[in-house]
Each structure stands twice: as structure tokens, then as C-alpha cells.
């Protein structure tokens, strides 16, 4: 009897905690979308009326539209470059035996443990010395550094799941090493590569903690624009912009999920 009670209490509390967790995780994004359709002038809950008014305002707002363009532009560049750099490095780590491999892997993942403020200020200082703060380079290179761990992790995972015997079979069938990579390795890890690129895109597109230090009078990304806007005031305009970001992110998650399955994302 006692045993039964403990079992039931654990099952019930577990279910309750999970319900709260999922609600808590989903709620902020959901509410942003709900409030973005308000027809009123201020952010209230429940929203007053329904309109696309604030989406029109975003479309006409040069500040946000420029920031959206900057964010997209940087994110595309970052994902392309991160993919190339990350694939080369992951391939070397996966395929070759050399001294200091563990150290290199630690280096590749170190951007995850360096606090964003440290990286942000450090890069700001570096580029200030180089007199390049007004250019796109601080953002581009900062995001590239941030994207490396995600790209490396995804590609390393695909490479280690990839059956090496298939490459031996190809070599046995007279395919040269380059041909093996082109005909066998790349096509088979393509989903992993695509999701790595998408990861890099999302990392760059959504980042604010490092970008906040790097838009110092120069190019402003959309998250930083939202941050500085909300820092002083907030209104349904931000809700509309944020909803756009939510939709873009959600679509991207679904694409990754299709490509490699959500499990393998993490």
C-alpha cells in the first residue's frame, strides 16, 4: 500500500511538473504572437481587437527593416563560412590521428563556456584598436566564433554515425579519395551538413548577447534593435517584429527536424 502511494505520488507530481514546464517554455512566444495582432496603441492583455496594423508599421519602419536585412545578410554569410570551416576541421578531427586532438576539440567548443560579455567586450576592444568598429567584420567574425561549436558538434556527430565501411567499399571499387568524399561521404552526411548550416544561421540570426557589444555605432542586427528599443519603451510594434522572428525560427526548427530528427539536434 505504501509503495503504491509513493509510486502514484511520483507519477502525479512528475506529470504536473512536466505540464508546467511545457507551458512555461511555450507561453512567452505564444503570447507575443497573440499580442502582435492587437489593434490598440499599447501592449495590453487581453489585446484589444484584431488587426494587421502593427505588421504594416514594421514593414514601413526603416529601422527594423534595415536591421532585419542586416541580420539576414550576416546570418547567411556566417552559415556559409561556418559550414566550410567547420566541415574541414571536423573531417580532420574525425579522420586523422594526431597529437592534441582533445585540445583542439576543447578549443572548438570553448566559445560555449566563455561568457558572452567576455567575448563581446574582447572583440569590441580588438576591433576598436583596429579601427574597424564601423564595419560589418566585428559582427561577422563574432557570430562565426559563436557558430563554430554548433557546426562542429553537428558535423562530428554525422561523421561518426556515417559508416566508414562504405568509403572502404568505394575505395575498393577504385574511387580516389576525393571521389569518395564527393560521391559517398558528402551525399550521405548532407542532412547533417544542412542542419549545421541552419544552426549557424539561427545562432547568428538570434544572437543578442555578443552582438549588443558589436553594433557600436555600426551595423545593427534585428535582436539588438529590439533590445535597444525595449530598453526604453515597448509597444505592439516590437510584438510584431518578434512574431516574425518566432515564425522564422519555428520554420527553421521544423526544417531541421525533418532533416535529421529533432533528437539529433541536441
Amino acid at each position, binding site marked *: 500500500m505504501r*509503495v503504491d502511494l*509513493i509510486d502514484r505520488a*511520483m507519477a502525479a*507530481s512528475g506529470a504536473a*511538473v*512536466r505540464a508546467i*514546464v*511545457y507551458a512555461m*517554455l511555450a507561453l*512567452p*512566444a505564444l*503570447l*507575443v504572437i497573440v*499580442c502582435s495582432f492587437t489593434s490598440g496603441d*499599447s*501592449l*495590453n*492583455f*487581453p489585446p484589444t481587437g484584431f488587426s494587421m496594423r502593427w505588421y504594416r508599421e514594421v514593414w514601413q519602419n526603416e529601422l527594423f527593416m534595415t536591421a532585419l536585412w542586416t541580420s539576414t545578410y550576416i546570418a547567411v554569410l556566417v552559415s556559409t563560412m561556418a559550414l566550410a*570551416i567547420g566541415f*574541414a*576541421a571536423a573531417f*580532420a578531427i574525425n579522420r*586523422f590521428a594526431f597529437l592534441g586532438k582533445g585540445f583542439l576539440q576543447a*578549443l*572548438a567548443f570553448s*566559445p560555449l*563556456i*566563455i*561568457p*558572452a*560579455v*567576455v567575448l563581446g*567586450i*574582447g572583440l569590441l*576592444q*580588438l576591433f576598436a*584598436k583596429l579601427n574597424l568598429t564601423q564595419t560589418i567584420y566585428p559582427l561577422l*567574425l*563574432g557570430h*562565426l*566564433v559563436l557558430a*563554430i561549436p554548433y557546426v562542429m558538434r553537428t558535423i562530428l556527430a554525422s561523421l561518426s554515425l556515417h559508416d566508414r565501411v562504405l568509403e572502404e567499399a568505394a575505395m575498393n571499387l577504385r574511387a580516389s579519395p576525393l571521389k569518395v568524399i564527393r560521391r559517398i561521404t558528402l551525399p550521405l552526411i548532407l542532412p547533417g551538413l544542412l542542419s549545421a548550416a541552419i544552426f549557424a544561421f539561427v545562432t547568428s540570426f*538570434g544572437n*543578442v*548577447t555578443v552582438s*549588443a*557589444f558589436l553594433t557600436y555605432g555600426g551595423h545593427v542586427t534585428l535582436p539588438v534593435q529590439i533590445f535597444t528599443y*525595449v530598453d526604453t519603451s*515597448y509597444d505592439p510594434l*516590437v*510584438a510584431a517584429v*518578434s512574431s516574425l*522572428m*518566432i515564425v522564422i525560427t*519555428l520554420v527553421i*526548427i521544423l526544417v531541421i*527536424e525533418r532533416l535529421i530528427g529533432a533528437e539529433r*539536434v*541536441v
Partner: protein
Amino acid sequence: MEEPLASRRVLTPALLLAPMILLLVLFLIVPTFGLLRASFLSESHLLDGSGFSLKQYIRFFSDSYYSSVLFETFVDGIIVSLICLGIGFPTGYSLARLSPPARRWRIIIVIMPLTLSLVVIVFGWLIILGRNGVINALLLSSGIASSPKQLLFSRPAVITVLVQQFLPFMILSVMSVVTQIDPVLEHAAANLRANRFATFRKVVIPLALPGIFAGFNLVFVLSISAFITPRLIGGNRVAMLGSLIYERIMAELNWPSGAAMAFILLVSGLGVTATLNALAASRLVRKGGRYAR
């Protein structure tokens, strides 16, 4: 006919790794050391200077305000990590034991806050906690409160938002380690007359310890360096080290001071990581790690 295999084995990986190494050295390691250098400058408002002084560090540790902020930041970090562990473990565990189709949408919900921009999440919480926000609307309409309550700009609010932001890291760490624990072990424990609680305490948790440590570590380090959330949710009332640094650099342009604080943050974060790693390497956890499938 023989190929120069030996030289190719060195040259090829070196060439492949060069771009990544170059990128990380130039734009991660060099800036970090540049910051370290700047933290030892005595004069403020100087990007580049000469001389070496511990002035910034001495000032930080002798000023009771800074020490209290550092202390508060640590306490907040620990609270956030513990809450994340408490509610993230059951969630991560259940995710690991669900069938893939049932797992699908739950995973998407868990991953969403990770991929979504932080400002958007924080903005969502402004809608929830704001004066005209969701909670106040509920309180007013249900008659519990007669006038809107000030929910923002408080430490509990900051902690709540930080928990939501970093919870996915804990859930995913726990999930990945629990998926490697064979469910048969739990059945065996049950067959040996262990109830669910005993099974958890004696089988699941010891085996899941590596994941718990990893999740705790990640959440703690992210929490203590947060600055967007304390600034937007906590306002001027809640000071955390991250938001202090942001102000020092971006508003006051006081480089050496900001740099010193950033370094104190980095070192404390690495210190906690090292401590947790040492703990994880201790006998108990090593056992768990070794026996997890």
C-alpha cells in the same frame, strides 16, 4: 609508385584545421587576452595604455557594493540551476523514455527557446509580467487584486525568466544521458522489490549524474553572465554582474573596470566548471559514467 603517405598524414589535417584554429585564436583567444591586459590598466576610459596595476581588482573587492553584487549573482546562479534541475530532471527523464513520435512536439517546444532570440523571449515575459500584462489581467478579473501589482523589476521575476531561458539546457542534458540508461535496469530494480522512488534514488540518479552535472554547469555559467534579462526584467532594482559590466562598458566607457569585472566573471565561471568536473571525476560519478551504456 609509393605515395608520400607520412607527409600527407601531417599536412592534410593541418591544412583542414588551419581556418578554424586561426579563427578561434584571432577572434576568441586574442580578444580574451586583450581584455585581461586591459583589466590591469589603472586609468579608466583608456582603450590602450601602458603600465600594470591591480587597481581595478582591488577596487572591486574592497567595495562592498560590488562584493554584494558578485554574491547575489552567484546566489541567483545557484537558485536558477537548482530550480532548473528540480523541474528539468523529471521532464528530461520522461522525454528520454517516450516513444519517438510522442517525443517529437515536446522536443520542438524544448528547443524553441534555445533557437529563438533571447530578446524575443524576454519580451514575451514583459507581456506576461508587465503592468498591463497577463498575470495582472488574471489577478484583476478574478478579483484577487484590486489594482495592478508591480511584478517586474524584482529578483523573483529575474530568476523566473532565467529559469525559462536555460531550462532547455538542463532538460536536454538529462535526456541525452537517460536515453543511454537501459530501461531494463529499472525493470530489474522493480523486480528486486524497489519502488519507484528507490529505483530513482539508487539506479537512475547515480547513472544520470554526468548529465546532471553537465546541465547544472551550463545553466550556472549562463545565469551568472546574463545581462539582457537582469537589465530588461530587473531594471535598476536588480543588479547582476553581467548588467553591471554592460553599463560600465557601453554607457560609461570605463574599459579597465569593465574588463576586470568580465574577468572576475570568467574566472568564477571556469572555477565552478572545474569544481564540478572534479566532482564528476570523483569515484561515484565515474562509476555512473562508466556503467551507463
